[in-house]
C-alpha cells in the first residue's frame, strides 16, 4: 500500500471538524442503515456516505489509515458496524462508538487522541507540547461523552471519553478550544495558558430541528403545519403533584386545567381550547407511547416530553377522538452510550393555604343571643356563660394538619448501537392536609428497543402503576361540619363518646356530623392496579419505507372499600365494596414512506387501527356488624345486605387513516390527512364518521426578500382547517334497553324491568370544525421565540339532551341538534434574556377563549343541576343560545329592606319577584389564563419561579351561602357576620337580620371574582461541586428548596379560587365552590443525582 502523505487527509480532518457542527442537525432518531454500492471508491468517500446516511462520523488519524485507498463496496441496509468492520478488516485496527462518533484506533492505541500528521511534523519543530485536560458536562451536570474538542484554526482534536474527560496536546497556549456536541450549542473557550479547562455545554437554543411526536409518527418541529405545544418532562416534575394533568397547569397556551378540589388524587378537568360538548366528554385524548391511556398511570418523572395537539390539522388524524385536543406523552427512552443512573428525591410539607376566619365561642354566643332575642324575645346565653366561653374550639384545627409528601424516582438507561433501554421506578406518597386523606403511587416502567437485523427492529414498553387513594376526607359533609360545628363545645363528651352536634342547643342544625367521628370512624379506600404493555415490530424493507405493527393492552383493576365503624354515631357498621375491571385492546398497523426528490420532501402515513374496550363492574354492600375488625373483608357477616350489582359495557372503534406531508424547498409545507372511524356506539347507518383536514405553512424567512433581515431568524405562517369528532355517547345509547330494579312486596324484594328515564333515539356523530391561523417567529438567532395562534372551533350536530315533559314518563331524549362555538387566541413566548455569568430565561403563555352556544334544540335552554342548599333551591348554570356556556343565571341583589331582609330586583317590573326576574349574573369562563416561568442561573445557583393565574372568571360560592345564611339553624359562620349584620343601627350591613326568615335567592351577591395570580412554585437550587468534594463517581448533584403556592393574589373570600366543585368531563355545572377540599401551601427540599 503506497502511502501518499499529502495535505488531502489534513483537509479531511478539517472537514471533519466542520462536520461536527453540521452533525448538530442530525437526530439520534435517524435510521442507521447504510446503502452504498460502488467500485473503486476511496475509504474517505465511504465514510462520507456513512455520515450522510447515518450521521455517524468516523475519526481516525491518517497515520493509521490511508483513506485514499480505494475499495469495492456493496452495502444494502447494512449496519454501521458492518460497514466499519468491512473497511478496517485486516488493517490491525479497532474502533469504539460513542454516540454518533466512531473512533478508529490501532489495536494497541492508548487514547483517543487524534493527531494530524501536520501536527506531528510540527512536533519536531516545537518540542514542548502542553497537555490540556478537562471535563465536559451538561448544564444539569451530566458528564458528556463523545464531545469533540478541537484547537481552533488547527486540525488538532479529540473527543471526550465516558467520564466526560478529554486530554489534548497543544503548543499554542493562547489559542482557544472549539467544542461541539449533538443537540448542544458549540462553544469556544480561550486557553489562556490553563492546563485544566472544564466546560459546561448548553442544549441548543434552537430546538427547531428537534423531532416532535405527532399522531402516528414524528415530525421536525420546524416542519409543523399545525398548532402544537411541547413541554419538557423536567418542567412537569418541578414540584410534587399527584397527577400529570395537574402538572400541566399554566404550562401551555390553550390548555385550561382546573382541579375540582385540592384533595390528593382528586379529579382534574382539562379543557383544550374550550368546551365543545354537552353530552360527551370534553377531556382531551391522552396518548402514552402511541396508545390511548389514563395519565394517572404516570409519575411525572417518567416523562421525556409531552406534546399537546390543539388545532384540527394536528388532531384530525385522531378523528372521532380528537375534538377535545390530544396530549401525547413520550416516556423516557434509553440512548446508546454509558449507562446513566438518575435519582430524584424530595420531601415536602404542606398545610392549608388559608384558614377561614370563623366566629369564636364568645362571638358565636353573641350571634345566637341576637337570634334568640329576635325569635324568642330573650337571650339564650347568660353573660356569665359568655364570659366563661372564651375563644372555644377552632374546628378547622381539628381537621387540618401539616402533611408530608415524599417523592422518589430512580431511572437507569443506556444501551449500545443495537439495543437501548430505559427503566424507572418511582414512589410518591402524599398525605392530605385534611386528616384521613392520602394518595400513594408506586410506578415501574421499562422500555427497550432492539435492532434484530438491518431490516427489523422491535420495541417493548411496559408501565405498571399501583395507586392507593384514600379520599375519605374529600367530603362535603366533613368540611361543612367542621366549619358549622359550634366553637363552644369539643368533639367528645366527658365519657369519651362522640358528641352529637345536632343536639347541643335547641337551635342546633339537624344535618351536621361530628368531624372527629367522621375522620376516625369512616374510611373510603381505593386502589387501582394499572398495567399498560405494548410491543411493536418495525420492518424497513427499503430506505424510507417502514411498516410498524403494534399491539397494546391496558388493564385496570380498581377496587373501592368503604367502611363506617360501629363506633360512628347511630351506626351498626356498614361496608360496601365495588370493583371495576377494564381492558383496552389496541392494534395499530402503520405504513410510513418518506422520500426526497430534489427539493420535494414527501412523507406519507397510512394506518389501520382497532380499539376495543370492555369494562365490568361489581358492587356489594352490607350493614350491621358485630365487630369492626373485619371492616370490608367479611361482608358475609353483615346483618342485612343490599342488592348486589354487576354491569358490563363494551365498545369497538375501527379506523382507517392517512396523512401526507409535503414540503417544497423547505419553504412551503402542506399537510393533508383523513380518517374514517366506525364506532359500535351509533345506530346502523350512522356508524361511520369521516374526518378530513388540511394545512399549509410558509417559512417566509427562507425567501430571498428576507435575506437582509437578520434579526428575524425563523418565521412561519400556518393555516389549517379540519374536522374532528366526538363519540359523545355511551355504548348502547341508541338501543331501547330495559333496566332492572327492586321493589319491595310482602317482606321481600322483587325484580322489576322498565325502560330508563331517557327516551332512546337514532343518533349520529357530533363533529367539530376548526380553523387555525398561526405564526411562529424566532428573533436574534432564535433567542426570542413566539408562537401565536388564532382559532375558531364550531361544533355542530351537537348531541343535546332534550328535556321532555315529565308527564311522558321520560326525563329527556338526546338529539343531534345544537351548535357551540369556541374562538380564541393562544400565545407562547420563550426568551433567553441574558446569557452571561447571569443567565435568565423566561417563558410566558397566554390564552383567551370565548365560547358561545349558537343553537340548542327548539331554542330550549338547558339548565344545570338544581342544588338544594335549603336556603336556596335552584340551579346556577344555564345554557342559552347566544350566551357563553355554563354562565350563571339568577336574581339581581337589590339591598336590604327595612326589616333587614334581602330584596331582589324586579327586572320585568311586574311587582313580584319570580323566575321571570332572573338574568345573567356571572360567567365562570375566564377572560384569559396565563403562565409565566423564569429560570435564572448564577454560577452554581439556580433560581426558578412559576406564576400562573386566571383573569375574569366568576365563582358562585355555595359554601358561603350555606355557611353564613343559616344562622337560624345554629351554624357557625364567618366572623364578619357577627360584626356586620343588619340592625336598626346598621341598616346597610353586609348580612341580613339575624332571625328565622330566609330571604336568600340564587343571586349575584354570591358571585365572586375568581381571578387569581399564584406563585405556583419558586425554587432555589445549588449544584454541588461533586468533583471537588471527591465524589467523582457522581456526575451531578443538585440540591434544592422550593415552595408551592407561596403567594396568591385574589379577592376571592373562601378557601381558594382554584376550585370547581362540580366540574367533570361533561359537566355544565362550572365555577361552583361547594365545600371543596382546600388548596395547600407547601415547602419542599429535594436532591437530584446522576452518575
Amino acid at each position, binding site marked *: 500500500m503506497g502511502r501518499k502523505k499529502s495535505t488531502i487527509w489534513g483537509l479531511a480532518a478539517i472537514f471533519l471538524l466542520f462536520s461536527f457542527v453540521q452533525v448538530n442537525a442530525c437526530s439520534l432518531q435517524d435510521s442507521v442503515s447504510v446503502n452504498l454500492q460502488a467500485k473503486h471508491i476511496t475509504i474517505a468517500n465511504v465514510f462520507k456516505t456513512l455520515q450522510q446516511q447515518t450521521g455517524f462520523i468516523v475519526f481516525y488519524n491518517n497515520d493509521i489509515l490511508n483513506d485514499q485507498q480505494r475499495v469495492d463496496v456493496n452495502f444494502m441496509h447494512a449496519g454501521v458496524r458492518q460497514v466499519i468492520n468491512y473497511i478496517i478488516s485486516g488493517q490491525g485496527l479497532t474502533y469504539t462508538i460513542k454516540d454518533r462518533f466512531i473512533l478508529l484506533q490501532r489495536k494497541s492505541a492508548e487514547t483517543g487522541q487524534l493527531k494530524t500528521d501536520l501536527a506531528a511534523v510540527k512536533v519536531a519543530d516545537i518540542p514542548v507540547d502542553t497537555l490540556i485536560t478537562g471535563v465536559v458536562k451538561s448544564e444539569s451536570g451530566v458528564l458528556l461523552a463523545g464531545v469533540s474538542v478541537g484547537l481552533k484554526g488547527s486540525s488538532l482534536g479529540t473527543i471526550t471519553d465516558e467520564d466526560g474527560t478529554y486530554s489534548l496536546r497543544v503548543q499554542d497556549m493562547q489559542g482557544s478550544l472549539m467544542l461541539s456536541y449533538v443537540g448542544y450549542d458549540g462553544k469556544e473557550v480561550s486557553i489562556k495558558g490553563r492546563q485544566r479547562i472544564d466546560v459546561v455545554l448548553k442544549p441548543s437554543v434552537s430546538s427547531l430541528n428537534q423531532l416532535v411526536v405527532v399522531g402516528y409518527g414524528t415530525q421536525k418541529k420546524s416542519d409543523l403545519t399545525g398548532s402544537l405545544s411541547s413541554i419538557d418532562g423536567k418542567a412537569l416534575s418541578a414540584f410534587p403533584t399527584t397527577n400529570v394533568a395537574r402538572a400541566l397547569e399554566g404550562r401551555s397556551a390553550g390548555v385550561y386545567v382546573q382541579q375540582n378540589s385540592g384533595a390528593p388524587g382528586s379529579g382534574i378537568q382539562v379543557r383544550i381550547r374550550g368546551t365543545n360538548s354537552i353530552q360527551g366528554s370534553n377531556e382531551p385524548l391522552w396518548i402514552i407511547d402511541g396508545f390511548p391511556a389514563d395519565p394517572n398511570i404516570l409519575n411525572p418523572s417518567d416523562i421525556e416530553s409531552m406534546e399537546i395537539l390543539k388545532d384540527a390539522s394536528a388532531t384530525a388524524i385522531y378523528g372521532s377522538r380528537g375534538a377535545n385536543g390530544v396530549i401525547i406523552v413520550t416516556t423516557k427512552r434509553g440512548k446508546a452510550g454509558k449507562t446513566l443512573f438518575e435519582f430524584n428525591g424530595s420531601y415536602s410539607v404542606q398545610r392549608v393555604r388559608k384558614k377561614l376566619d370563623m366566629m369564636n365561642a364568645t362571638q358565636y354566643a353573641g350571634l345566637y343571643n341576637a337570634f334568640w332575642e329576635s325569635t324568642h324575645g330573650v337571650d339564650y346565653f347568660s353573660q356569665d356563660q359568655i364570659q366563661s366561653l372564651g375563644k372555644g374550639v377552632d374546628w378547622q384545627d381539628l381537621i387540618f394538619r401539616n402533611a408530608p409528601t415524599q417523592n422518589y424516582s430512580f431511572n437507569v438507561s443506556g444501551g449500545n448501537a443495537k439495543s437501548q433501554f430505559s427503566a424507572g421506578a418511582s414512589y410518591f406518597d402524599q398525605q392530605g392536609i385534611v386528616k384521613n386523606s392520602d394518595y400513594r403511587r408506586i410506578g415501574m416502567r421499562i422500555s427497550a428497543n432492539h435492532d434484530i437485523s438491518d431490516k427489523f427492529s422491535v420495541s417493548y414498553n411496559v408501565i405498571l402503576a399501583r395507586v392507593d387513594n384514600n379520599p375519605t376526607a374529600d367530603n362535603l359533609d366533613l368540611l361543612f361540619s367542621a366549619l358549622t360545628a359550634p366553637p363552644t363545645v369539643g368533639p367528645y363528651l366527658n365519657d369519651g363518646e362522640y358528641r352529637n352536634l345536632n343536639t347541643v342547643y335547641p337551635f342546633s342544625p339537624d344535618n351536621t356530623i361530628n368531624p372527629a367521628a367522621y375522620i376516625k370512624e369512616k374510611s373510603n379506600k381505593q386502589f387501582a392496579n394499572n398495567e399498560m404493555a405494548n410491543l411493536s415490530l418495525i420492518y424497513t424493507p427499503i430506505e424510507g419505507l417502514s411498516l410498524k405493527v403494534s399491539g397494546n393492552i391496558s388493564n385496570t383493576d380498581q377496587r373501592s372499600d368503604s367502611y363506617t365503624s360501629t363506633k360512628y354515631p347511630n351506626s351498626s357498621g356498614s361496608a360496601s365494596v365495588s370493583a371495576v375491571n377494564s381492558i383496552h385492546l389496541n392494534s395499530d398497523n402503520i405504513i410510513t414512506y418518506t422520500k426526497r426528490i430534489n427539493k420535494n420532501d414527501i412523507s406519507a402515513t397510512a394506518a389501520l387501527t382497532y380499539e376495543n374496550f370492555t369494562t365490568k363492574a361489581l358492587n356489594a354492600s352490607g350493614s350491621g356488624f358485630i365487630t369492626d375488625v373485619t371492616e370490608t373483608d367479611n361482608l358475609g357477616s353483615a346483618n342485612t345486605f343490599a342488592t348486589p350489582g354487576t354491569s358490563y359495557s363494551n365498545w369497538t372503534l375501527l379506523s382507517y387513516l392517512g396523512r401526507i406531508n409535503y414540503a417544497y424547498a423547505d419553504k412551503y409545507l402542506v399537510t393533508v390527512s383523513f380518517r374514517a372511524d366506525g364506532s359500535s356506539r351509533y345506530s346502523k347507518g350512522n356508524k361511520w364518521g369521516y374526518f378530513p383536514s388540511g394545512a399549509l405553512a410558509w417559512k417566509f424567512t427562507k425567501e430571498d426578500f428576507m435575506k437582509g433581515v437578520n434579526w428575524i431568524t425563523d418565521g412561519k405562517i400556518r393555516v389549517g382547517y379540519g374536522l374532528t369528532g366526538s363519540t359523545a355517547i355511551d355504548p348502547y345509547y341508541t338501543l331501547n334497553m330495559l333496566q332492572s330494579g327492586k*321493589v*319491595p312486596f310482602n317482606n321481600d324484594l322483587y325484580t322489576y324491568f322498565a325502560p330508563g328515564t331517557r327516551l332512546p333515539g337514532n343518533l349520529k356523530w357530533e363533529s367539530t370544525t376548526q380553523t387555525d391561523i398561526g405564526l411562529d417567529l424566532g428573533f436574534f438567532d432564535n433567542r426570542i421565540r413566539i408562537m401565536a395562534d388564532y382559532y375558531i372551533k364550531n361544533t355542530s350536530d351537537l348531541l343535546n339532551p332534550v328535556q321532555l315533559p315529565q308527564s311522558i314518563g321520560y326525563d329527556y331524549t338526546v338529539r343531534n341538534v345544537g351548535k357551540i362555538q369556541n374562538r380564541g387566541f393562544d400565545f407562547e413566548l420563550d426568551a433567553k434574556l441574558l446569557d452571561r455569568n447571569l443567565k435568565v430565561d423566561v417563558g410566558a403563555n397566554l390564552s383567551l377563549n370565548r365560547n358561545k352556544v349558537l343553537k340548542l334544540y327548539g331554542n330550549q335552554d338547558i339548565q344545570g343541576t338544581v342544588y338544594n342548599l335549603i336556603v336556596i333551591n335552584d340551579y346556577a348554570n344555564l345554557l342559552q343560545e347566544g350566551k357563553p356556556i355554563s354562565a350563571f343565571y339568577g336574581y339581581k341583589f337589590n339591598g336590604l329592606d327595612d326589616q333587614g331582609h334581602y330584596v331582589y330586583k324586579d327586572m320585568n317590573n311586574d311587582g313580584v319577584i319570580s323566575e321571570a326576574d332572573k338574568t345573567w349574573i356571572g360567567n365562570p369562563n375566564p377572560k384569559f389564563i396565563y403562565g409565566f416561568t423564569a429560570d435564572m442561573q448564577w454560577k452554581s445557583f439556580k433560581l426558578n419561579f412559576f406564576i400562573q393565574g386566571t383573569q375574569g372568571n366568576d365563582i358562585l360560592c355555595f359554601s358561603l351561602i350555606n355557611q353564613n345564611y343559616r344562622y337560624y339553624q345554629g351554624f357557625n359562620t364567618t366572623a364578619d357576620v357577627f360584626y356586620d349584620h343588619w340592625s336598626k343601627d346598621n341598616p346597610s350591613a353586609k348580612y341580613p337580620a339575624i332571625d328565622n326568615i330566609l330571604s336568600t335567592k340564587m343571586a349575584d351577591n354570591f358571585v365572586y371574582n375568581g381571578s387569581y395570580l399564584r406563585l405556583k412554585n419558586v425554587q432555589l437550587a445549588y449544584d454541588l461541586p461533586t468533583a471537588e468534594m471527591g465524589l467523582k463517581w457522581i456526575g451531578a448533584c443538585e440540591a434544592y428548596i422550593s415552595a408551592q403556592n407561596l403567594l396568591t393574589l385574589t379577592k376571592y373570600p373562601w378557601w381558594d379560587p382554584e376550585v370547581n366543585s362540580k366540574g367533570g368531563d361533561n359537566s355544565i355545572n362550572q365555577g361552583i365552590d361547594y365545600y371543596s377540599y382546600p388548596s395547600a401551601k407547601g415547602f419542599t427540599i429535594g436532591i437530584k443525582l446522576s452518575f
Partner: protein
Amino acid sequence: MKKILTIVLAVLLLDSCSKMLEEHPRAIASETFYKTPDEVVDAVNSAYASLLEGGYTTYFTNLAACADNVYAKGSLAIIDEYQGFSTSNITNMGGVWKQLYLAIRNANLVISNLAKNTNLPDDQKRQFIGEVKFVRAFCYFNLVRLWAGVPLRTEDNMDEIDLKRSSKDEVYDLIVSDLKFAEENLPDAPRMLGTASKWVAKTVLADVYLTQENWAKSMEEAGDVIASGKFSLVKVSTPEDFEKIYGADVLTSSEEIFYFKYNSQHSWSLMSFFHHDGDGYYPHGPNYFAFYTTSDNYFYEHWDNNDLRKQHDFYKWDIGLGDNTFLFRKYVDQDGSTPPSNDWPIYRYAEVLLIYAEAADRAEKGPTPEAVECLNKVHRRAYGYDPDAPSPVDFNMVNYNEESFFNLVFREKGYETILECKRWLDLLRTHQAASMIKKTLNIDVDTAMYLFPIPITETDFNKAIDPVKDQNPGY
C-alpha cells in the same frame, strides 16, 4: 403481489367490520319483552316501583305540613304560614308529579304491550291489566287532587310529547273506569302484600266516590269491603299496642288493605323526618324532627287525654321551640342496627269504616245504625275496648243529625289517621281547610295552596300547556 394482498386484506376487513361494530349489550331489549308471564310480572312490578322510592316522601311531607294538626320545620315551615308554597316546596312536589307519571308510563307500557301479546290467556292478561290499571288510577287520583285536571296519558297517547290538560271530570272518568276494571278482574287476595287485590280497588274506589261526593256509590264500595269479612281492626289495650299496626317488625295485620311495604334492604326513608337524635325512637338516623305540634294546637288541645291514640302518638320534646312541643311517636324503629322497615299505611280498614260512616250519613241524610257501628268500632278500639262489642264510649245514634254525625266522623278520622297524610285532602274535600286554619292559627289561607302549580318542568316542555293561561289559579 404485496399490493394485491393488501387490497384483499383491506376488503376482508371492511366486510367483517360491519359485524365488529354491532353492539351486543347484556341487557333486555324492550321489543322482546312482555311475552312470558314472568316477564309480565316483572313489568307489572315496575308500575309500583317509583311510588315506593324515597322521593315520593315529598307527597307526605308537604301534605302533612299543610294539615292543621301538624306543624313543620325547615323548608316546610313556610307552609304553616299558609301564604303559599315556597319554591323548594313546589320543586320537590314536581318530583312527585314525575314519580306518579313514571308509574303511569310503566302501567301504560304493560297495557299496550299486553294488547299485542298472543301467548297469554285472556283472563291472565286481564288480571295483569287490572293490576296496572289500579296503579294508574291510584296515580291519577293523587294527581287530580293535587293539581286538578292534568294531561291524561293512556296507552293510546303515551308517545305524544305535547298533551293538554284534561278536565277534572275526564281524569275522574278514567280513574273510575280503571278501578272498575281492576275490581272486576283482580283476585280476592293480592298477588303479594303491597299489590292490588279486588278489595284494594274497591277501597280506593270508595275514596274516589267520597271525594266526588257520590255518597251512595262510596257507601256501596266501602260496604262491600266491610261485608267481605276479610279485614278487622287490631285490638289494643295499651298505647304501646298500636305498635302492632305501625311497628317496624309488623309484617302485616288484619287491618292492612293497601300499604307501601318496606324492609331493611329497601327501607322507609320517611322515618328520618319524625324524631330527634336524642329521643331514641329512631337511633339509626338521620333525624330531622321535621314535624311537631304544640299543646296549644286546637286539634291537640281538644283531644281527649284518655284516648290511647293520643297517648301513643305524641311525646314531649323541646326542639328549641319551647317545652310545650310534641313530636310524633306513630312510627318508631328503636332497633338502630338496620334501616327502618316500617310500612307506609296507604289504606287501613279503620279508614274504610270511617269512609262508610261518612258516605252513609250523607247518602241517607243522617246516621244509620251501620254507620254508627262503623264509627263506634274505631272509637272503641281507641279506648282499648273490643271493637266489635258495645262499650261505654259508644256514640248513640239518636244524639246526632247528618251534620253533627259528619263532624263526629270527621274528628274521629282526624284522630285515627293523624300523620297518615289524609287530613289536608280531607279538609279540602269537605271545604273546611280555610275555616280550620282560621280556627287553629287565625290565618286566612292563601287559596292558591288548594292546588300545586303544574310543574315548570312540564309547562316548559309540553307545548300544549300554556305556562300562564293553563296554570292553576294563583301561580
